[in-house]
């Protein structure tokens, strides 16, 4: 089989655009999902029973249903309750909601792993549970949280490829467009795999760099 280099040359600019879109979508979802996950994680550690129950139910739902189903649910359910987002933003919303569920579990696990005497000391100077979590426990949990957070961010970038099902323009969708016109699936999917791999490798090395730079005590 002769390799048609022309296919690659004409595909690269389109895939590059798709990559930028994937990075933008992932970036937004990571920020929103991490913030949401932090809030949910803190709630799940709070002394307030209803908040803990809510987070538990939320996490069970996110973990218990496929992301693909969640993407469709958000895409079709939001207009029903009067929220109209374009497909890109409902895709970002779906990824963020999914990410927040997993991040809250990471936060809960690492924060409650911070040594017990810390809560006692914070109580002894009159801190409330929430103050203890925010000022004492979470800052100490950031470093141990990083490897699990990196895994979650990597999953999110790869999972963003599922958004092509609701016609969000991103790397996977860009690739599908090329394949539909040129009919060279093998070559294009190989390129797509390489593009995802490079993105994920960059995130992984960035995470290792940050982990080295975080203060140790």
């Amino acid at each position: 089989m002769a390799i048609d280099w022309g296919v690659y040359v004409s595909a690269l600019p389109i895939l590059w655009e798709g990559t930028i879109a994937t990075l933008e979508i992932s970036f937004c979802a990571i920020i929103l999902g991490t913030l949401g996950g932090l809030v949910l994680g803190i709630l799940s550690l709070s002394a307030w029973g209803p908040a803990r129950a809510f987070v538990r139910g939320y996490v069970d739902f996110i973990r218990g249903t496929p992301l693909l189903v969640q993407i469709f649910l958000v895409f079709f359910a939001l207009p029903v309750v009067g929220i109209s987002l374009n497909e890109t933003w409902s895709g970002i919303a779906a990824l963020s909601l999914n990410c927040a569920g997993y991040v809250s579990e990471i936060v809960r696990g690492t924060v409650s792993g911070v040594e017990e005497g810390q809560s006692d000391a914070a109580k002894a100077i009159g801190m409330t549970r929430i103050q203890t979590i925010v000022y004492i426990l979470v800052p100490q949990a950031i470093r141990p949280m990083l490897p699990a957070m990196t895994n979650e961010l990597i999953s999110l970038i790869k999972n963003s490829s599922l958004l092509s099902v609701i016609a969000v323009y991103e790397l996977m969708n860009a690739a599908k467009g090329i394949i539909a016109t040129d009919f060279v699936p093998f070559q294009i999917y190989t390129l797509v795999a390489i593009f995802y791999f490079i993105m994920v490798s960059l995130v992984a090395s960035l995470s290792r760099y940050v982990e080295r730079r975080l203060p140790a005590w």
Partner: protein
Amino acid sequence: MVNENLVGGLRAPGASVPPLLEVRNLRKSFGNVEVIKGVSFDVAEGETIGLIGSSGSGKTTILRCLNFITMPSSGSVHLSGERLGFETVRGADRLLPERTLAAQRRRLGFVFQRFNLFPHLTALENVAIGPQRVLGLSRSEAQERAAKDLERVFLADHMKKRPSQLSGGQQQRVAIARALSMRPSIILFDEPTSSLDPELVNEVLSVMQILATNGMTMVIVTHELGFVRKIANRVIFMHGGVVKEEQPAEQFFQNPKQPETIQFLQHLSQQEARSDPAHI
């Protein structure tokens, strides 16, 4: 801050000033095991109490129950006449909301055996975080107060260091400064020198002695009997979850009454004799 009603550390009979801290019939069980079996005592303002007893006698648990880090199973603690931890509603004790309990805890300082400093913060930040986040001082006011309190424990030169860069004795002094910065009415010390290397014990004890001399009210759980004899006004001896003996310090050591106390003191003095090089 010298209390006129203190005569050699004991409240004069008929004194009208109520005790600063009133502990009544305190009990604590873990599962089926009752560790504290009904303990009552008073602490007057300006008093230093040595709370001693063999390990497992419940000293640390009592101390932790006084500021509700550990929830007592029953009994009451009053600070300056105010009931701590619980309120009585229609004859039944009800736990106070967390926020109220947190506000009450500010008034009792606590110094832990293992320091429990916040490792991600510098010495200055460890001391300033309470005044800033709990008392609502501005960042600069809190740091100013923290700097002064660190000077009081002779750590002016180490403010920027993290706990891991400090010796055990220095860490414990930071912990004392952290307690002081909340301006508590009383400070509870839970074996403050037990996890220190022997050569570091004295720097912590001398800081505590200065506090006692300046009239700070303190309850000290410790095995340093020489220190208790030197600075405590009164000694409470615990055995098997109850107070076995309570006496002014000098009397306690010279003339202990209960057989358990006598045995405990003998046992400890034998140990000291063994470890004292002069006796080898």
